[in-house]
């Protein structure tokens, strides 16, 4: 299933992530998932939220740079090999490249959820829809 992810540009130094999280708190934005990728100079924080518009507004108000990206959300069966068999193998077989992924637990439910950035969204959706 398609999901809108928000990416935020952060410098790689103490306090920057806190600055972002404070902005979300002030804007009453609830985070469902967060992942941070880093390079020597900068990082990109990627978040999944309930209210995308409110989140983008909060980010801009905090003086930060935001971009939205379409990503794939996939349920992971709660069993060994679940992610591999239900999601990754079908994608690999179809020649879809996974650029990055992170996972979160919905809480209350048995299943976890994987967020995937893929190089061919349409194909990925087709593949996972068929499975």
């Amino acid at each position, binding site marked *: 299933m398609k999901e809108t992810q928000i990416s935020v540009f952060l410098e790689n130094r103490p306090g920057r992530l806190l600055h972002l999280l404070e902005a979300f708190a002030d804007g009453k934005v609830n985070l469902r998932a967060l992942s941070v990728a880093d*390079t020597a*100079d*900068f990082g990109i924080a990627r978040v999944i939220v309930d209210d995308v518009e409110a989140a983008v507004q909060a980010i801009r108000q905090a003086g930060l*740079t935001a*971009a939205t*990206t379409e990503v794939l959300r996939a349920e992971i069966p709660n069993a060994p090999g679940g992610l591999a068999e239900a999601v990754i193998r079908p994608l690999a077989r179809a020649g879809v490249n996974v650029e990055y992924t992170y996972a979160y637990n919905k809480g209350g439910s048995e299943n976890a959820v994987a967020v995937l950035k893929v190089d061919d969204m349409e194909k990925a959706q087709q593949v996972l829809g068929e499975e």
Partner: protein
Amino acid sequence: MIWDIEHETMPRADLQRLQQQRLQAQVATVLEKVPFYRQAFQEKGLTPAAVHSLSDLAQLPFTTKEDIRDNYPLGLAAVPPRQTVRLHASSGTTGKAKVVPYTVGDIDLWSEVMARTLAATGVTEDDVVHNAYGYGLFTGGLGFHQGAERIGATVIPMSGGQTKRQIIFLQDLGSTVLCCTPSYALYLAEVAEEMGIDLRATQLKIGIFGAEPWSHRMREEIQSKIGLKAYDIYGLSEIIGPGVSVECEHQDGLHIFEDHFLPEVVEPETGESLPYGERGELVLTTLTKEAMPVIRYRTGDVTSLNPETCACGRTLVRMEKTSGRTDDMLIVRGINVFPSQIESVLLQVKGVEPHYQIVVDRQHTLDDLEVWIEVSEEIFTDEIGRLEALQQELRTELHNVLGISARVKLVEPRSIQRSEGKAKRVIDRREVYG
């Protein structure tokens, strides 16, 4: 040691007679051969006969770096290309590069003043000269090369870069003379230390450092860390390259080779001539150049002149170590950099002009040029790979335009200091003057 006793120690009265003769000939040449000067003289109502004595110099029009650029590539040349045997140039990809031509006579003159320069610091034919100035269009490398060759010393044409290899060679090849920028000298000392090599234990005894300003404290540091006597040298490609002036063994001001380059100091704002001893902008007139003679060239360097005979015996006037610039030019690793060049790269790569800041620092004793760029939403993308590719592209283009490498740092919006809404474009954390 004095290479050319006749010209370097001639009584000032004789020197001034020689300068006047040569000035008259040089003025006649530019008026006959260079339309730019003909026009500039006409605008001031001057004829070739305007120069009766040296004191008439102050009436002549100035030449600026913009004049050279506006006449790109060779509009100020006084000889046809066929009589030109060499071109050098300052950095810049566009029509903004300053291109300087030389005749056979000019190359000979340049070799001669560089031989004087090296001799003034004590270099002889028995020396082994490690020349780490960049070779190529930059005048540093070939200037020192030709001077050392004229003296008959052994030249090692190292050029820049490959620092560890430079240190191995300093150790293994018995080099006695080190030529490079002062900041690179300190960098060599630092890397040598990391490699467990003590440069003081090598044969090095003389260092000739130029192409960028440096402080007295830096001189002491270089002398103690490398174990040599460090001399300042001054020059610029518009005039000839290195070889305009140099310190003698007394290290008390740089002797200008006045029989070839006529110095004045002027008030930078008004252009009024200033007396000996007062600080202002150095202005140079070539007296013997053939391919590109220049009249009253505004160097942009701040200094003062001292005409007293030196203890070394030279009667040539001394300029003090340059103590600043009259414009926003930065000198980074010996290369002249203007903020406008960096701006044009940013504009060209992104199509928009982002907020940016140029930060110059000495990192590990080497000049470090960083360009900070605020990441606006126009530039931002979710993909790290693409942001890194943008950094890489900017680095490549900056290198293409500036001729030296710069680091590109992406920073958050509004993180660059602004004063009255305007970002401060240049932060220079080095302590280069004084």
